[in-house]
């Protein structure tokens, strides 16, 4: 019987003929783009070389070399075939998975075209993608923690920025671990302000978040200009070294990409798993989500809505602080003004794209991280596409997602609504 319900649900979400056709046309358009934009501008006989060892890796894995044109034709053909099937029959429930597959084929075609007649370090690209996804996904996890309990937090950017600076200062004075802890606590402290404003005083949560963002930019820029520039020893924490997971790092190709990172990447993986398990398989998570969906129902069952929300927002702030510390202690090794550069906001986009699910958000974080990395690399490679366009691509994808093409996202029903107890 539950299967029946699920089928009804999917029929509602995937079944409309319009949506099926739109998806089919999207697939065909991508096939056309591969054929006309990439294949048509590629000369026959040119080869693409992908290096499969990231830079600095000891492992020796042979390069992947192939003729560009036949591959592009094959990829275009595959996409067209999938699109035709989608138009005629439809993939039903698996439509979104198929969309992911087609997008992957398209990206692979794009990379092959970019690297035609040259060589591209594929392993390096993938590893850089993972690294760039770290702060974005941490921001998204912070958002998930808050919004699953019904509090909108657009101050993640500010919490990250403050966390980054505090981590740099304390890291310089007392060592990396103290710096990390201080960054996490700084994020938690700002989140506590947001929590009090939006839960106790029922301030508009967007206004409260905006105020915290502006405050963070102001205070960090001030301290940076006034003190960090003058007293250099305050801004020289160093960075966490990479950890090689013994055994796993020796797996060819995958090993150096996935199993050799600093603690921020492994921290992300651990938090991701914990949060997913916590939200969907524990008492804590059930109550947390209930408060975000229908706080009054939770209240009538004896769940303390306010306490749950305070915990959620403060934990979310600590997550953002951890993400902020990545910039100074995990990446650059010093604090620069406004160095988070909107990653907190992109994290919120990843959260929405990932449908308020930790692993969904990670997937979106990877996509955004990939675009971020590509824009930086391709500018160096001198590709014929302006890097600004590449930077725009994932956000255009986000807008398409938000418009409901991939299926409606399920925002927590009470997201952003302050809870008021009656009768007192």
């Amino acid at each position, binding site marked *: 019987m539950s299967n029946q319900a699920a089928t009804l649900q999917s029929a509602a979400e995937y*079944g409309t003929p319009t949506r099926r056709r739109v998806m089919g046309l999207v697939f065909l358009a991508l096939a056309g783009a591969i054929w006309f934009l990439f294949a048509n501008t590629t000369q026959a006989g040119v080869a693409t070389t992908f290096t499969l060892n990231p830079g600095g890796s000891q492992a020796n894995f042979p390069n992947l070399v192939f003729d560009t044109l036949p591959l592009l034709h094959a990829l275009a053909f595959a996409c067209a075939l999938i699109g035709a099937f989608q138009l005629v029959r439809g993939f039903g429930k698996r439509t979104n998975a198929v969309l992911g597959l087609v997008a992957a084929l398209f990206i692979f075609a794009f990379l092959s075209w970019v690297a035609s007649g040259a060589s591209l370090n594929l392993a390096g690209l993938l590893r850089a993608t993972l690294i760039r996804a770290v702060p974005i996904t941490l921001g998204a996890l912070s958002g998930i923690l808050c919004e699953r309990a019904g509090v909108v937090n657009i101050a993640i950017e500010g919490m990250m920025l403050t966390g980054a600076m505090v981590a740099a200062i304390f890291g310089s004075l007392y060592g990396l671990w103290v710096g990390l802890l201080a960054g996490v606590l700084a994020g938690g402290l700002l989140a506590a302000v947001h929590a009090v404003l939006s839960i106790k005083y029922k301030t508009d949560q967007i206004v409260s978040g905006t105020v915290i963002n502006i405050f963070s930019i102001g205070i960090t820029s001030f301290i940076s200009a006034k003190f960090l520039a003058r007293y250099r020893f305050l801004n020289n924490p160093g960075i966490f070294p990479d950890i090689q997971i013994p055994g796993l790092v020796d797996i060819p190709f995958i090993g150096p990409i996935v199993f050799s990172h600093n603690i921020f990447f492994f921290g992300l993986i651990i938090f991701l798993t914990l949060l997913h398990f916590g939200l969907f398989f*524990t008492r804590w998570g059930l109550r947390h*989500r209930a408060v975000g969906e229908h706080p009054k*129902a*939770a209240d009538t*069952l004896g769940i303390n809505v306010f306490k749950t929300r305070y915990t959620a927002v403060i934990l979310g702030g600590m997550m953002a602080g951890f993400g902020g510390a990545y910039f100074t202690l995990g990446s650059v090794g010093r604090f620069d003004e406004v160095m988070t550069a909107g990653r907190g906001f992109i994290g919120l986009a990843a959260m929405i794209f990932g449908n308020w699910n930790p692993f969904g958000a990670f997937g979106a974080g990877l996509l955004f991280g990939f675009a971020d990395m590509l824009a930086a690399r391709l500018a160096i490679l001198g590709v014929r596409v302006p890097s600004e366009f590449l930077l725009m691509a994932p956000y255009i994808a986000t807008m398409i997602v938000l418009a409901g093409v991939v299926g409606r996202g399920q925002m927590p029903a009470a997201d952003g609504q302050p809870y008021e107890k009656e009768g007192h």
Partner: protein
Amino acid sequence: MPPVLELRNITKRFPGVLANDRINLTLNQGEIHALLGENGAGKTTLMNILYGLYQPDEGEIFINGQQVQVHSPTDAINAGVGMVHQHFMLIPVFTVTENVMLGDESVKVAGVLDRQAAAERIREISSAYGLAVNPDDYVRDLPVGGQQRVEIIKLLYREADILILDEPTAVLTPQEADDLFKIMHSLTERGKSIIFITHKLREVLDIADRITVIRRGKMVGSTTPKQANQSKLAAMMVGREVDLSVHKKAAKPGEAVLAVQNLQVADDRGQVAVDGVSFTVQAGEVLGVAGVQGNGQTELVESITGLRPAQGGSVRLLGEEITHADPRRITELGSAHIPEDRQRDGLVLNFPVADNLVLNTYYQEPFSKGAVLQQEAILETARQRVTNFDIRTPSAETRAGSLSGGNQQKVIVARELSRPVKLVVASQPTRGLDVGSIEYIHGRLIESRDQGVAVLLVSSELDEIMQLSDRIAVMYRGKIVDVLPAKGASKEKIGLLMAGVLDKAKGGKTRKDA
């Protein structure tokens, strides 16, 4: 043996209102005790006090003879009190199991949910009390009756002995209400005690063991179904004699005002909801559309009023083709619409009453000159209408959302009928309203009909259809299965048609559909 529950001298004041004034109530074990009163009489406040959502200003609560303090729902749950709220406290995106276990979860080590164990207990409760649910279903996929069963299971899961049901039948179809009454009996047979809050007189007489009537926060009296009858209860509730029957003269049908031909309409999912429906409504008659909710009535009304596109067929208003016309044009041609969901489609809750009263004419003289609204004229008209239609509001500038349901509906009726209309489309016009408001709105509809207006009445309350209609069309699965004159139509026959049983109802005549 002491009563399972005793409330003594409960008093609750809200700013400017005495919501409960020294109310006493006793509940014996195995009893169904009905708490009867109009909307706003203080029934729900009293029960929210018992459930710990409100704190009383005075008074005491005894459970099984012991005085208890109920400061929160947790206290109430621990004392064995459970409540099904009028607006369900369910989370649509959770499964039945998750909704039931929330707040009282079965866990394995370290707070990890044990859904299996909870589902098992739900199945036990479900079979013991005849509450059919599947623990793995998502609540959003359940019909309203099913959601209500989940709410009741929530109470039983917490081993509540005293169950408070707040207006449980307000959202149910007649069949679902009958199922609920069976469930209520099976609960009391097993020693549970029930407080049944309602304003529907017939239900009280059918099911209650004892009846307590509350009016304006005060206890009016207690009685039993044997000693009471509908008009006596209505008089207690309202404080004056109420005429429950609708008096109307014989209809004088005139020309056809609304003509619907072979209309086809799809629902939100793109499925056929209205499947080739044809009928006419004549001037000076009420055509009632009977049917269990969800058989296409909503889509039919939305299509006629221009809110939902028709897939095929035609709708004509006084000979004008309006199948694809927009709502404003349909309104200007003389059609009035009293929508099914007054809060969502009938009013802008955050606007004052005055603005709500001109939502369909605000752009015309004298309410606008050019692009500028004429507040004076709007307010002046609003004040007149508030008086004419007996809308109980502190002022015409009061937010519409703060009025009671009955008065909100009167705002809509005042707006729609204060124009020279030719057709009134009224969808569930009295759902959730108190006796006084129902009486008033029925009177207004019949008045319109007597003035030569065509009235299309859609209702899932069979009594309402039978009382008001001159002809009755029965809808089943998107089709009109029969149209019959109201005079001489029996409730049983219409009930069978509503359930899709055609052969018996039509006396052996065969029909293809169904």
